[in-house]
């Protein structure tokens, strides 16, 4: 998903440092916001703090989705040059490895916690209702959209302007 604007048809040119900060905000605030809402219980303040963090994470994603670096990971091949294609392919391969690892660890965790709870050994938290699953799927969707761009942003040195 790339948000193309009329002013920046090839994406908004953001500094690599800015993209890195936005990615850190997205990857830190989204799960933290979800956890705060989970543990808030009756605390309105904690619940609101959680919502605020998730909103901040989504705002960071909205900015990233219109950036030139994100365009490189989402644009059809015919609209990229040879360097962009090569970088995108390498980043997609690395992102796929990381994403697969995260999903596998998550599935393993849920399998083990369900098994342990069924045997009455240890009752660790696991998703039980629609809200939990929505939060997890939302996070995975954001991660899958942004991970190739993150590989690019953290893997290359910025190019100075002409």
């Amino acid at each position, binding site marked *: 998903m790339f948000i193309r604007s009329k002013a920046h048809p090839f994406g908004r040119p953001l500094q690599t440092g800015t993209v890195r900060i936005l990615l850190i905000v997205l990857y830190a605030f989204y799960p933290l916001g979800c956890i705060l809402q989970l543990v808030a219980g009756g605390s309105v303040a904690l619940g609101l703090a959680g919502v605020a963090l998730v909103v901040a994470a989504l705002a960071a994603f909205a900015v990233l989705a219109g950036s030139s670096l994100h365009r490189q990971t989402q644009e059809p091949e015919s609209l990229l040059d*040879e*360097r962009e294609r090569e970088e995108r392919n390498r980043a997609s391969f690395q992102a796929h490895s990381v994403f697969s690892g995260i999903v596998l660890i998550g599935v393993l965790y849920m399998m083990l916690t369900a098994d342990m709870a069924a045997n009455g050994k240890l009752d660790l938290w696991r998703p039980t209702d629609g809200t939990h699953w929505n939060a997890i799927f939302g996070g995975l969707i954001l991660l899958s959209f942004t991970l190739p761009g993150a590989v690019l942003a953290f893997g290359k040195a910025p*190019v100075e302007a*002409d």
Partner: protein
Amino acid sequence: MIYNRLSVFRAERGLSRKDIAEAVGVNPQTIGYLERGDYAPSVELALKLSALFEVAVEQLFSLKPFAPLAHSLRDQES
């Protein structure tokens, strides 16, 4: 590693990265990557660039570092 004299030729012609990028059909950032030696071009792009500057491809790209321009000029004079 492929070395190039792209920035020298570009400065000599008074062209911007954007001008060169448009002429050879790539993103201006790609010209920056080439100049810094962070990206090795395809044969097609190398040939397009050498055609743009009207020089042989080996005058623009090399597998060995190019001698500094001052050294080349001094060698020519002596």
